[in-house]
């Protein structure tokens, strides 16, 4: 588990996911002929999208466990009118 969390926390992994997403949602993968059928395209797009969101959820969870709360500091020291 810890190893997975460490992997998810690495910036390089997040960049990799970004690139992976770009590939998935671009030509040539989207040019596959069977995707011309609306229902296939619908399933492909939304399923991949959901998988990416799940990945984002895992990344967020891994980072949360490693991060202390840092609140905006401008509340106390701003000039108020």
């Amino acid at each position: 588990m810890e190893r997975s969390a460490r992997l998810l926390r690495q910036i390089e992994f997040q960049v990799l996911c970004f690139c992976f997403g770009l590939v998935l949602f671009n030509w040539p993968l989207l040019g596959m002929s069977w995707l011309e059928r609306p229902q296939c395209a619908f399933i492909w797009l939304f399923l991949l999208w959901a998988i990416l969101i799940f990945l984002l959820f895992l990344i967020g969870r891994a980072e949360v466990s490693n991060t202390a709360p840092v609140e905006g500091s401008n509340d106390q020291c701003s000039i108020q009118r």
Partner: protein
Amino acid sequence: MFDPAVTITIICLYMGLLFCVASWAERRASTGRSVARNPAVYSASLAIYCTAWTYYGSVGKAATSGWIFLTIYLGPTLGIFLWWVVLRKMVRIKNKYHVTSLADFVSARYGKSQTLAIMVTLIALIGITPYIALQLKAVTSTFFLITAKSEKFWLKEYMGLLVVVLMSLFAIIFGARRLDASERHEGMVVALSVECVIKLAIFLAVGLFVTFVLFNGFGDIFQRFSQTVAFRGLEIGKSLSNPEWPTYLALSMFGVLFLPRQFHIAVVENSDERHILKAMWMFPLYLLLINLFVMPIAMGGLLKGGTGMKADFFVLSLPLHYGGPWLAMAAFIGGFSAATGMIIVSSMTLATMVTNHLLLPVLERTRKLRFLRKHLLKCRWAAIAAIIMLGHWFESCVGESYMLVNMGILAFAAVFQFAPAIVGGIFWPRGNKQGAILGMSAGFAVWSYTLLVPTFVKSGWLSEALLRNGPLGIGFLRPERLFGISGMTPLNHGVFWSMVFNVGLYMAGSLYFAASEEEQGMAKEFMEDMSVSSHTPLSTYGEAHIDLGARRKQVEQVLVQYLSDSEAGAAIDQCLEATGIRAKTLVSMAELMEFLKEIEARLAGSIGASSAHRALRQGVVLDMREEAELTGLYTRILQDLQLGPTELRRKIDYYKERQTLLSDHFSKLEARVEERTSELVASNLQLKTEIDERTKAERSLRESEQRFRSLFEHHRAIMLLVDPKSFEIRDANPAAAEFYGYAREELRAMKITELNQLSAEQAAAVSRGIETGEQTRFVFPHRLRDGQIRTVEVHSSSITVEGRTVNFSIIHDLTEQKILESQLAQAQKLESIGQLAAGIAHEINTPAQFVGDNTRFLRDACADMERVFALQDQLLGRLKERKQVEELAGKIEEVCTEIDSQYLREEIPKAFAQSLDGLQRISGIVGAMKEFSHPGTDSKVCVDLNRALQSTITVSRNEWKYVAEMVTDLDPALPPVPCLPGEINQVFLNLIMNASQAIAEAAKGNGAQHKGTITITTRTLDQYARISITDTGCGIPENIRSRIFDPFFTTKDVGKGTGQGLAISHSVVVDKHGGTITVDSEVGRGAVFVVRLPLDSPGDK
């Protein structure tokens, strides 16, 4: 279709709801219970990304261009993978430099450049104002679509204005109440998040309606659509290979952060950088959900005969035309939400940028307008209204033009021009102001030329020749084929060239021009991990000789240009405190510089970083000596360090790195402290609340105890507090002392068993009953001091006094009542006996009469017989003397004939027998009477109920014998029943007399000549003796059946009944015997009274 007035009312109610939500959130924030500081709220508020362009436009785009609409949401999802790096850094920079807007952010990075701030503001203004117009257009168009009389309705002219006013008010009240724009607007953020949730919910509802109500699910829609001509024409499948696909992805990826409203929500309104982590999946999930039904709605609309031209409003028109008017109204509200969220935040952020970066520089350069610097907040309000108004004006001018329709993606392309300067500013240390100015201005110029100008042409405002032949006929400069490039779509073309120029010139300019030292410093700070906003410790270098008072005045003069006197004074005090020089009169150069830096950072929160920097540089001027001293200060620091320039740089880098690490650590610690502090504050609050509640409870308890004590001491009722275990009397009130004849102290030394004469076991059983609540009412004989025994009724309950559980008893002396009750019962009995007396007299009179007649007959017979006996005596004498026998025999014969001795011989035995029978009947009646009027006893005795019933039947015989036959069915095995015989007999008598009267009443009513029947049965049933008395009388109507046992309730004529009979019967059976008495009746058929008496009555024998 809806009435316009109804629709406007609903809009106003909806806005009112948002006002309430925002006010509530602000009130919560002011009490430290913030709602907005929540990752879910932060994530939801980010969804203002989904404007009316999403809500309506996505469906339109899907209907005309297929899947391309999805890129606007897939792009952000992909970009979000980098948010923890990019957005977190932006949030930290915002926190450190009090960044208020996108322009401020860019300006802060590049040496607080005002030029850049102005450029960003102008680009945003030009790019976003038409986008606002697009939202207003969506609101007004859908309003007219949903209202039936919209074409004739006078509000047509003013609908747009109404929206403008509402939006302006909301943005001003919740978005610009304070000058410091870097402060979070919690009310507005919460209201926006609510709006976003509402629009999502409604869109999903419409999607479900279309997919599952109008059609049979996704498969059905896709199947049907695939068979239509429209599908082949649209070639939806091929839209995935649309050449604009990557461009859309890139534009949306940056747009989600660099659109001014998105920057404001994502960066400025962020209260905790950890919220980004939640938003990283919640926000894309929102985007996925809101897009799930876009394609089904688009296809559904087309299948239902809609055209691509009208597809924008399928979301509204499908529910409206296919039986869902209120769903259509909800859809309208959803679209209204989508539009208003964007308008409010965009106008607010644009207004901040306009006042800080366009208006303020003008005010500073124009002497006559300088007074307005003190009214910046009002200027911001005016700017908000002006921007929304500008959008409205734009919408009314350009209407349906090609330009407005395509403005959504053009706005994305416009803000894309910020990307090189911002991304480069964060990650490329060599990027500088000149490069940013060059790149951004070139990029914007190319954007205008290649994307905006063609839309003007297509809208008909410029000649088409410009597109066809280029400016002045130069084909090389054709806007959509710049430098002769072809084969690209206009959007790809425009974005490509604008980026080529933007990035190229940004990099080239940054490499060519050298950055100022200040800018280099800022660049390095932007590159670092900005997790800390701590103050650098003050240097001890330099002599403290600068008059702080004079400097303070200079700073004050700068601040009062923008703030009120009191605010300026407060701000200076805060900064003096922060730099630790508040108590000093003379400060060193190092301390002065720290102070000025602090002031600048704080002023930046109100007027932007570049304006604050400029204002302080102009307002606080160092003289020659101070400048020399500043130079000397840095020189001395270097000398002290004894380092060469390279070594110094290396050391600085090392210490900066170390400082960064320490700062990071410090930041985490500070955050933890803050977290703990907030926890402590929360605990403190909770504790305070608990203390308050406890104090209140204690006060209430004290008051309650006082009330109890007062009642206890002064009430005339007898009250005792008794220990439930030892039975010791804990306390007795004065009334108790008076009643029992003991002093209170004496009572406190006694046990309750001394008064109630119970054994310890009985007392314990009573205590248990009180404790469990099974029995709280008792009747005991209590012994008084003078030996008197009084019957008392005790009501007890278990209470806690001074932490101890005691039995609290209120005692009521029943002795007098018992006597009265006994007298009443006796009176009733006497009444019954009185009632029976005539009948009994009649019953006794009949046998008495014939006993008398017989006796008289026997007397006369005896006189006659005396004559016979005299003669017989003579005969006997003569027989002895044997003389005149015949003569005497003749006389005897004569007398016997005369007195009819044969008759006498026959009748005399009969007369005796009759007399004996009569006497027996009299004796029976008298016996029954005696039995019936059994002397009252206080305790129950075992009684043969069959016999008791027979007695009662006998004494009451005269009451029923003329109207009814008496049938008895008495159970010979009925065991003796413990009861009060006199009172039970009274009950039976009452019931029999009632039965007899009911039969007589019935006979009178229907003129019947035959008698009725009274049937009395006894049975043993479980642990009860069941006695039923059934009559065939007139019955009891249902409406009075529940009242027959009430005292004084009677249906008889006045004087014929007191209404006490059944009431007393009920009291005797239920209260005194623990039994039941019930009645069942049918009008005209008779009634059955059933008495159940317990066979086992503990304690009574």
